[in-house]
């Protein structure tokens, strides 16, 4: 009897939810890519700015052409100007083995080995800046979930006081814990899979990489991130990143990230049909 009642109530409740005005509204896509229409942009421009709370960093944030690489100042894909600390011998070996398609060591994508070329996970921190795409921060009492538009993937930043795991299995997006120091959220992360690159130039890191990020929210519309990378196996001293500025995408709470997947099977077809012949000088498919 109870099951029959539930089977009647659930569809009715679902119907009510789906027919609510929220689902009839415009989808405010982020403005970096895709289909944010003029109508949606006008509505976003007219949306009220949210109330300012320095400890509320929720929302969709976009860098609008920020740095694509660790450190500042930087240029565009083909002319980056960064000054990383010297590499160790091991770091140099990794860097030489990486064959990117951007920057001074660029090779044709078909002849390179960028993990991106086969849709491998970009990992962190590369997904933060590699493709100039936005990310969303969702805050809960015990953790912050950061969703990246590229790959529609996420990482957790635990803020419930737990310690970082000791000797964890490496992950593409590492293990992150955060705490507030005044109005700055300090995030420490470790346990990274060293197959990922730091950036589109192919700078490496090891499993021993420790990232410290400082998130600062100086006004309702702005989020600043500064990052320090400490990885003695790869770099002879810590790499101090520059301040990255991200802008809140309005309307807050209604902006939708694009489902930007890199689909391995589709990219393989593209590589076989276009990219590999282009790079390798093959005259037919």
């Amino acid at each position, binding site marked *: 009897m109870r099951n029959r009642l539930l089977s009647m109530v659930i569809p009715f409740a679902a119907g009510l939810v789906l027919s609510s005005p929220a689902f009839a509204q415009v989808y405010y896509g982020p403005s970096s890519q895709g*289909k944010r229409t003029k109508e949606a942009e006008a509505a976003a421009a007219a949306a009220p700015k949210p109330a300012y709370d320095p400890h509320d960093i929720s929302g969709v944030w976009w860098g609008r052409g920020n740095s694509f690489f660790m450190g500042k100042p930087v240029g565009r894909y083909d002319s980056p100007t960064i000054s990383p600390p010297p590499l160790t011998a091991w770091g140099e070996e990794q860097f030489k083995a990486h064959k990117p*398609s951007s920057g001074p060591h660029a090779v044709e994508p078909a002849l390179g080995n960028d993990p991106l070329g086969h849709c491998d996970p970009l990992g962190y921190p590369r997904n933060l800046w590699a493709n100039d795409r936005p990310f969303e921060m969702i805050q809960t009492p015990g953790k912050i979930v950061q969703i990246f538009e590229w790959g529609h993937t996420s990482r957790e930043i635990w803020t419930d006081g737990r310690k970082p795991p000791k000797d964890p299995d490496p992950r593409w997006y590492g293990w992150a814990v955060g705490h507030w120091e005044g109005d700055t959220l300090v995030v420490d992360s470790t346990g990274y899979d060293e197959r990922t690159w730091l950036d589109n130039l192919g700078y490496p890191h090891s499993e021993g990489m420790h990232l410290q990020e400082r998130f600062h929210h100086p006004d309702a519309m702005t989020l600043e991130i500064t990052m320090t990378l400490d990885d003695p196996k790869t770099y002879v001293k810590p790499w101090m990143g520059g301040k990255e500025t991200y802008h809140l995408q309005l309307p807050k709470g209604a902006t939708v990230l694009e489902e930007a997947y890199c689909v391995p099977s589709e990219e393989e077809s593209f590589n076989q049909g276009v990219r590999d012949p282009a790079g390798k000088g093959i005259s037919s498919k």
Partner: protein
Amino acid sequence: MKFKFAIYVILVASFLMLGIPLSAHHGTGVAYEVDKLVTIKGTVVDWLWSNPHCGLLFDATDEKGNLVHWGAELGNPHQMSGAGFGKDSFKPGDKITATGHPAKSGAPRMTLDHVVLADGRMLSGKGVKGNGEHDDSSY
């Protein structure tokens, strides 16, 4: 005089705008002759509406009468739909005229600048956002 100056400014601005997205696209400047354009008339073999790159494969006949299998690189479906492309934009057998930047390797591959369909419609090969602005994102 003012008119001539305006034309000059438009030409320079157009040239600059052309250069920005090409340098921004992942690997484009490395693999393709970004300051050179070729135009090829051909017949569609396959249309790859795929993430994160679309591809247009077509056959053409060269000046010696040989069949050449061509391929063109485009952005992702989200970008390309803003420029008017769709999953069903092409089907095998469609006659097209494709203009793009040729591969540096000499292979019959290009990164698409624009394509003219059999019905005369022209579509830009560069991604366009929903608001009409050019999209120079890499992926």
